[in-house]
């Protein structure tokens, strides 16, 4: 999933301080699962904003809406009946959701309420960790299913580096050395020979090196 964390309230308020009517929009997908921008977080932020305004003797109208997926035009369309009644939209979706709202409602100011962080997985309740960078040419088949691009601090294709110590990365003792994890996993699977094969320099054009990316499925595209 895409993970995110709510921005500090002061930053959000700063964007909308001169607005009286806010459309506060969450998303039911990734940001709900990582507890950053789902229905509950929308309600919490609305309440916090309301209190902040009231405390300063100001009033604000906040309409709370949580869309099924804010990154798809069909769902973003649900905002249309309410958009004119809002001075600004505050979005609690990831950056993709924010930009879909921007693309649909050209004349409206749209502000982000979360910091979109990374593609990751829930290690345990309340803890999310980075797992994939979307490099466009997945290597997991060569590395025992563990990603050196997202999880090695240096993105080494043939690690570990000399900084690997007792299974930890030199960047922090909190970070597992991913090349240790890869080695352990290859051994577990009985395919440690794989480790001897050099992974060639990566062609980063499939990642961001080739500019913004697009996927077109001709059979589906309209």
């Amino acid at each position, binding site marked *: 999933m895409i993970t995110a964390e709510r921005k500090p*309230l002061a930053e959000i308020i700063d964007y909308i301080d001169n607005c009286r009517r806010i459309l506060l929009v969450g998303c039911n997908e990734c940001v709900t699962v990582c507890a950053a921008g789902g229905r509950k977080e929308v*309600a*919490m932020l*609305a309440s916090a904003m*309301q*209190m902040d305004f009231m*405390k300063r003797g100001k*009033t604000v109208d906040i*309409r*709370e809406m949580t869309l099924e997926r804010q990154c798809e035009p069909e769902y973003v369309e649900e905002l249309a009946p309410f958009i004119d009644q809002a001075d600004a939209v505050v979005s609690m979706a990831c950056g993709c959701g924010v930009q879909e709202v921007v693309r649909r409602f050209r004349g409206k100011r749209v502000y982000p309420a979360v910091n979109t962080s990374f593609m990751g997985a829930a290690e345990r309740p309340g803890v999310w960790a980075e797992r994939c960078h979307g490099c466009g040419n997945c290597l997991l088949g060569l590395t025992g299913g563990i990603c050196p691009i997202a999880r090695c601090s240096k993105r080494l294709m043939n690690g570990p580096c000399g900084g690997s110590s007792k299974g930890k990365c030199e960047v922090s003792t909190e970070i597992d050395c991913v090349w240790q994890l890869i080695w352990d996993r290859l051994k577990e699977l009985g395919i440690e020979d794989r480790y001897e094969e050099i992974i060639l320099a990566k062609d980063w054009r499939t990642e961001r090196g080739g500019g913004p990316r697009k996927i077109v499925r001709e059979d589906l595209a309209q």
Partner: protein
Amino acid sequence: METFEPVIVAFCCHYCAYTAADMAGTMRLDYPANVKIVRVPCSGKVDPIHMMKALELGADGVLVAGCLEGDCHFKTGNVKAARRVTYVQTQLEEIGVEPQRLAMVTMSAGMGTRFAAIANEFTEQIRKLGPNPVAAARKAQAAPAPVAQVN
């Protein structure tokens, strides 16, 4: 100057604090009428939004009262409640509302005396803090209609 009588909302777990409050009554112990009790099936049922809404809508203080550690009827509801209280306190701090307006307390069903003591102490603590700044501003504005709305 009129004396300030705080409004305290106490979310009380059915298995402990609610019964303790009842016992305080049966024991004829005095505790302030300021404390409004909301019975919940477990302190773990109290969501951060309940705590926020209570303060947003005018409570001067909010108590979440659950079972003693290790005694939760649902195993860890009280531990989760305590963590949520801490989380909401950070949110309150961000808005500049005193985090001490919200507190987690624990007791067993038999602790009527403890319930009354906590009710007294917390009411005093909130009285010292003064009115909830949000509620005060709301009153001053002659209460605009609540506008937050859930889809």
